[in-house]
């Protein structure tokens, strides 16, 4: 599986050199950016077991905060992005503290986070003087980036955004994997499986739930800013419930049991509506049908099922036997 992932990474790195089609590369850019949000959502949902409905809100709030700090406080793009992530972290801490102090779980947690997300959306929708309400804001100025060897360049053009998206996704996957492979991941897994038992084993359930919620939302914030500046347009729909549902669909479709799974979900749900030319209504129906099909027939998602099938191959069996002496705890 590891070799397959490295191979996929290399192929993705070289893809813009081979494929010149803007259509294909655009699908990949959306996959990468939405993949960041889906992977981070899975940290809260799949690994810690908390169904947060605040993910789209974190995704949208950060884009608005970035835009406001750029235009009102003249902070450069990357500084504003930092401010936005910080702002989302603080908001997540407040909401998380309220939810987890009162020990809200499952549907109660989902409903309360949904209420906070709706509050955020309504503020954005109605605070016309700052957010321009339902008309949204066109983001005309493209951010600039300085890199050693390349100098300063503007983030414009498909291949530039392709690498920005890919780097962000690789960074998110790397951080999530490191976190999940450490003791923090063991605590997340214990909380997901049985938080009362986790607490009696000395795990500070409140702290680790808050940590998962904050890290997840911080990455959603990064994804939101990239998404808005790639599209060049910002609107209150970023914070909407269907946007949160899209992240949930990506995770369920790709597989909530692995770090990479949600990226596969993001790819399918991004590519599908573009490949099959459908009207908006038919597109939503296709989404629903794909989701129902997956939940019924592939409960582990596409990636989870592929991993199970791969393990059955004789070559994978030998590799597993050789590795079995390693003292690891695979919680998912």
């Amino acid at each position, binding site marked *: 599986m590891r070799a397959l992932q490295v191979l996929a990474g290399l192929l993705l790195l070289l893809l813009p050199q081979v494929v010149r089609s803007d259509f294909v590369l655009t699908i990949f850019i959306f996959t990468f950016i939405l993949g960041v949000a889906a992977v981070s959502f899975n940290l809260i949902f799949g690994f810690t077991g908390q169904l947060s409905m605040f993910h789209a809100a974190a995704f949208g709030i950060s884009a608005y905060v970035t835009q406001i700090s750029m235009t009102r406080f003249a902070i450069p793009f990357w500084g504003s992005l930092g401010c936005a992530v910080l702002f989302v972290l603080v908001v997540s801490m407040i909401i998380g503290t309220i939810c987890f102090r009162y020990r809200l779980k499952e549907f109660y947690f989902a409903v309360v986070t949904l209420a906070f997300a709706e509050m955020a959306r309504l503020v954005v929708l109605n605070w016309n003087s700052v957010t321009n309400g339902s008309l949204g804001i066109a983001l005309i100025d493209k951010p600039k980036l300085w890199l050693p060897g390349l100098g300063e360049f503007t983030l414009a053009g498909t291949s530039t955004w392709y690498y920005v998206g890919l780097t962000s996704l690789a960074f998110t996957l790397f951080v999530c994997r*490191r*976190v999940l492979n*450490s*003791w*923090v991941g*063991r*605590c997340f*897994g*214990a909380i997901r*499986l*049985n938080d*009362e*038992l*986790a*607490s*009696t*084993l*000395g*795990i*500070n*359930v409140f702290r680790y739930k808050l940590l998962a919620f904050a890290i997840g939302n911080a990455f959603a914030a990064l994804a939101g800013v990239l998404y808005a500046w790639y599209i060049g347009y910002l609107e209150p729909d970023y914070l909407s419930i269907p946007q949160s549902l899209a992240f949930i669909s990506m995770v369920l479709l790709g597989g909530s049991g692995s770090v990479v799974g949600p990226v596969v979900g993001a790819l399918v749900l991004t590519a599908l509506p573009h490949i099959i030319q459908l009207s908006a209504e038919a597109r939503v129906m296709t989404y629903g049908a794909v989701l129902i099909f997956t939940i019924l027939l592939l409960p582990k998602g596409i990636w989870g099922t592929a991993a199970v099938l791969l393990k059955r191959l004789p070559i994978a069996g030998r590799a597993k036997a050789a590795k079995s002496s390693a*003292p690891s*705890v*695979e*919680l998912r």
Partner: protein
Amino acid sequence: MSLLSMNALTKRFGGLCAVNEVKFDIEPGEIVAIIGPNGSGKTTLLNLVSGLLPITSGTLLWKGANIGDTSSHERSSFGIVKTFQNPLLFGELTVEEHLRIASHLRFKRELGWRRLAEIVGASRRIRQVHEGIGVHLEEVLRMCRLADKRGTQAESLSYGDEKMLGVAMALMCEPELLLLDEPASGLGQDEVENLDGVLRDLQRSGVTLCIIDHKVGFLGKLADRALAMANGSALAAGRTQDVLRNPLVVEAYLGAGHA
């Protein structure tokens, strides 16, 4: 100084007084039994001590310090660990994975904030701690007679082994005071004897035990002292055999005609 002192410990659920002004001390190294008929408040008392339920009034002292306001994970880190009557487990994980998770407190105790290095990339110190935990894990597996089931998923274990896994997880927390809620209930004779051996090994290794059970024969041989409860109140306390012969205790268990 007593290891744990309960002073006028009370728990009310609305109008129901589940634990009523219980006063009892537990000394280091002893095995203490809490007995009483169903509904007498034994499990509630243990939940108050382990922090799973908040105390309504009274004080709880751990080595002289008041711990009444602390949460359950903090009490685990002090060394007060509880097992459950119906074992709480992480169903889909194996026995060994359970014990790895249960080593959280030791990992935290030995490394403090240096455990953050595990996120960046394992350092030599972290590897050493994991090796130390591995040695402890083997000891616990052996002590709890679970070594041959290390790779078994918890949901496939027999009821007796599930209970033993509960004890094993508590041991990974390196407790000073282990609270056992009906460890022998639902076990066959062989399994009870096995449990008896495990608990005696534990006492020898310096762990103080506080056990609730209805198997009076099992507790009578094992416990040094006992506290008998009825309707939330302490009925009698003292040497186990004396408490078991106390007419008030016999009456509470079997009715007035037997006292």
